[in-house]
């Protein structure tokens, strides 16, 4: 699992949501540039591709859509699933994410219980991937 997210609060919440689903092996990258470097490492064989990315839409240095496009052009990630997470419920942002090939778009809610549903979303994508 790779989470690309710059907001410490959201990192905490995503970690909680995934732990509740028994998903523990988490790499956290704090900006889009770190995401780019990670992608290059995987392409060189220095790291293995994750089963699932959770990528924030608005990241420092390189944006979520930029990183998403980069991942999608690389054959190394053919089996990685991608969730784009964002505070924005604008249809424009949502359609950009799906056009670039994100598997899911998650609007980060403002209540704890609702935020935890990202765990179910992740589990569902991981199940699809393994079956």
């Amino acid at each position, binding site marked *: 699992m790779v989470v690309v997210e710059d*907001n410490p*609060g*959201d990192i905490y919440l995503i970690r909680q949501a995934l732990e509740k689903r028994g998903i523990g092996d988490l790499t956290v990258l704090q900006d889009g540039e770190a995401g780019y470097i990670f992608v290059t490492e995987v392409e060189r064989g220095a790291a293995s591709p994750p089963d699932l990315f959770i990528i924030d839409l*608005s990241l420092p240095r390189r944006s979520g859509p930029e990183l998403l496009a980069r991942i999608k052009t690389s054959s190394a990630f053919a089996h990685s699933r991608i969730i784009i997470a964002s*505070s924005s419920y604008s249809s424009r942002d949502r359609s950009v994410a799906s056009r670039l090939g994100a598997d899911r778009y998650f609007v980060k809610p*403002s*209540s*704890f219980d609702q935020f935890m549903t990202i765990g179910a979303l992740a589990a569902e994508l991981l199940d699809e991937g393994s079956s």
Partner: protein
Amino acid sequence: MPGSLEEQTVYIFAPTGRDARLIVDTLSEADILAKTCSSRDELSRALQTGAAAAIISEEALSSQDVQELARHLESQPFWSDLPILLLTFAGRPTPQNISSGRAAEVLGNVTLLERPLRPMTLRAAVRSAIRARMRQYQLRRRQESLQHAISELEQFAYSASHDLREPLRNIAIFSELLEKEHLAALDKTGRQYCNFVRASAKRMETLIDDLLAYTRLNDDESHNEPTTADAAKCVEMALASLSTAITESGAEIEVGPLPVVSMRSTHLYQIFQNLLANAVKYRGEAPPRIRVSASREEGFGWRFAVKDNGIGISPEYQERIFGLFKRLHTNAKYSGSGIGLAICQRIVQRSGGKIWVESEPGRGSTFYFTVKHERLAPGGRG
């Protein structure tokens, strides 16, 4: 000087090359950029890339040419009204004279110049046409920079609203967790602080949502939503969205016969939703009595009214309430973001109407707004 080189050039279309060359020479002596066109196609192409003015001699124009040119001129952007100087022959009526008369009618910004023409007359007429054209370019530049500023401002409001939402979510969630998981560790004051944080976060969220709704009014323009709205349906939907508040307040609502008007139904719904929500919210001691009605506004269209028996508004505030973030009450007494009426005003004004209130403190308010008749009435006017 505004405009490209082409846009500063006068194009001349005269069938005999000699006439055209003479005109070019006359204008060049006065430092006016001039070029000849040897065919109508060449003229059309030149006008497409931009031109300061066109000089056309009447014998060059068949009636088909006139039609073609008129079509081209009709598709000009709003700032553009290309000056055309039409050279005619004085005196005897000829078939050309007749088509010139017609050309003068359909080609818009046409000046007729009778031959024989003195160079001085020609230069003065062309200079005047160029001056007018330069004004048009200025108008275009203003329009472009205005459009640019507006879209930047909207983009700014939009992004700012989204970026504000991000930290806010965390404030809401972590104060929620603090209350949920650490309640025992907090004393009474601590819990109260927590409550303040959560209530403020909630309120800020409403503000941001409403602000987004306000900025998004522009996005809607491009959508292919039908532009006629059944007011009765919009009111019905608005009442449904307010059903809890209506039941709790014991409001009685009377809806008169309402027309179909030319406006996006989401917009008309938003107006009624805001006005009715206010009518229920700003109630006095008695349960709200609200009446929605419409009447014809002579020569304009329809005038809608939403009348209540609520607390009313003092005269000095009656205009101010339509401004963005303008509120008259503390949030504890009547909650709100101060955006609802601003949204209503923006929608109404954009469709060419007016919105206002008539009210007396303690004696209720009536909000009025007008909607223009559609020019064509495919959906009927109800």
